[in-house]
């Protein structure tokens, strides 16, 4: 037993006996049902239910027929599951005279969102790269103006933009709306990219310059391949922002180009006829599906992107 004395830091004599080992030892025991855990998980559960309940009601209602809805049990699961409301919402719900359902709005939204994202990310990433790595004269002033732009409320700029687009001959067209989205995405995206590129070690940039790469060479061959995570973040921000946009869509386009959100509003808020709750619910879920899918799909990619960058050193 005398060898156990070696672990005796307190300085008791070297021939310490077994009683020195009495008392706490090893990993501290943890109780699964402590008061703290009950409180913690209880609170989390209540909050989770609070957030999930509306979605539950939406899904359940969208799968019911109108007679069942009229019974008034909104929390009850459907007795008879029907996909009729989903089909109707997609292809035959009426907004005004037009009875094509949400499908047209969906394709409009796609045609608005994709070019807007590509355009705004392409420009903003080059902006951010130039601001972070090529300190040109007036860079700080330019950056300040851009950031101030992020704080001006949209409503102030609505009407001036209408005039500008009219003068350019783009008012009411998809191109005009895409342009507006690209411009409004610029401040926040440029800030995002600038901050990311600033965190890239400056020596990498210097090494590339010594190696003879120019402005675009460094951007495409060095910076771009290193920045997948920030591009995914920018894409998430833009997809959610532009897909969910209502204001610009309704102001800058004609009815035949209305994005999905505007059409959804017109379906749900129509004051004539019967309120088809099931169709409304289905339409709302369909509209919200795209940002949701982007979140889930790119969230994974996002984590992978970060992990890929984490092993560098």
């Amino acid at each position, binding site marked *: 037993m005398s060898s156990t004395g070696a672990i005796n830091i307190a300085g008791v004599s070297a021939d310490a006996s077994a009683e020195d080992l009495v008392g706490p030892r090893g990993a501290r025991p943890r109780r699964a049902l402590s008061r703290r855990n009950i409180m913690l998980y209880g609170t989390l559960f209540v909050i989770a239910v609070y957030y999930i309940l509306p979605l539950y009601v939406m899904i359940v209602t969208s799968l019911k027929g109108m007679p069942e809805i009229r019974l008034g049990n909104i929390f009850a699961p459907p007795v008879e599951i029907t996909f009729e409301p989903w089909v109707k919402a997609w292809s035959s719900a009426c907004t005004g005279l037009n009875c094509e359902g949400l499908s047209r709005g969906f394709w409009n939204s796609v045609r608005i969102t994709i070019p807007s994202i590509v355009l705004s990310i392409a420009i903003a990433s080059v902006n951010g790269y130039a601001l972070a790595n090529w300190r040109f004269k007036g860079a700080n002033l330019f950056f300040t103006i851009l950031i101030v732009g992020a704080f001006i409320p949209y409503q102030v700029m609505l009407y001036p933009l209408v005039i500008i687009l009219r003068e350019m001959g783009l008012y009411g067209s998809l191109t005009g709306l895409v342009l507006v989205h690209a411009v409004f995405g610029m401040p926040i995206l440029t800030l995002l990219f600038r901050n990311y590129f600033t965190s890239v070690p400056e020596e*990498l940039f210097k*090494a590339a310059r*010594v*190696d*003879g790469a120019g402005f675009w060479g460094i951007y495409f061959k*060095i910076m771009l391949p290193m920045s997948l995570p920030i591009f995914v973040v920018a894409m998430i921000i833009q997809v959610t922002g532009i897909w969910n946009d209502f204001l610009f869509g309704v102001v800058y386009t004609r009815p035949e180009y209305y994005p999905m959100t505007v059409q959804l509003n017109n379906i749900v808020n129509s004051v004539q006829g019967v309120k088809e709750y099931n169709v409304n619910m289905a339409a709302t879920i369909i509209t919200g599906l795209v940002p949701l899918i982007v979140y889930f799909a790119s969230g994974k990619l996002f984590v992978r992107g970060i992990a890929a960058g984490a092993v*560098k050193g």
Partner: protein
Amino acid sequence: MANVSVKDLDLNFGEIKVLQNLNIDVGEGEFLVLLGSSGCGKSTLLNCIAGLLDISDGQIFIGDRNVTWEQPKDRGIGMVFQSYALYPQMTVEGNLAFGLKNARMSKDEIKKRIARAAEFLQIEPLLGRKPAQLSGGQRQRVAIGRALVRDVDVFLFDEPLSNLDAKLRAELRVEIKRLHQQLENTTMIYVTHDQIEAMTLADRIAIMRGGSIQQLAAPNTIYNKPVNKYVAGFIGSPSINFIDGEVRFNSDPVFVAGDTKIDVARYEFTGNGPKPGPVTFGIRPEHIFLERGGEDEPFTAEVEVDVVEPMGADTLVWSHMGGNELRFRVDGQTSLSKGDRVTIGFDPARASIFDAETELRL
């Protein structure tokens, strides 16, 4: 072919003057080390030579060509960075090829050059790997290879070994020296704050402080005949002992500090001295010896031991003399302890004497 000259270089960041009126001439094949503490402008100077920073005034010549306004790639330089700066998404081969591809070199030539550099640096088995899969030493070798494949006349090193651990640093230091010996006509400019690296590698060292060069000379000269107090204190570890006192004349000059009198008649004064007045007397710890009866050094004194620091090969002893701290080195086997009284001796001719006011060597 590839001498580097910096003439009247000024660099200002707005109101701040970073480099002022710098002049350096580096001969072809020379190994110049820029040495200084952080913030002295040594890396900045290197970046100016590389063309990564636009200078405010002056000229830069590489191989007798005025490159003041040239892009980095057109200056015939290769650069190695402290953080290696390897392109993380490319393989080692891609890293080596990047500069050559930018120069639109033929594929065969690129292959040939990479093969040659890889063999030279013994990184052939690593060519297919990504930088993240390499150790620090391997990464730095690849970084050197990136400069090597471009067949440049001037290598610029920006603290290339500072990120490595002590053992690896010593190994790579020798490798860099070997590299310089093998690439005979390649000029190398090397920035470091590590004086051992500077002493071992350099043909000449430029000691920098506050954006200007204090002394530019061979390592031996810098060590033995520092031009001012700053250089004397900066070079040498443990650092030089300074004793404040004054020079007096009887017939010969004598240094006096308290009741210690040191005869400095054999000291080689520069053009500035000797003159009577307050001075600082500097003597390196390794130039002070323990007297063992023989008393062969021109100056001897008895001192009391304050602290003993055994370091294996030798032992550093802290003592005091004339109100100043005095460190000296003794053999590692010597057993001394606090309170011992020992007799030490040194040759004043090996000392350095500085004017107390201007701090310049006398």
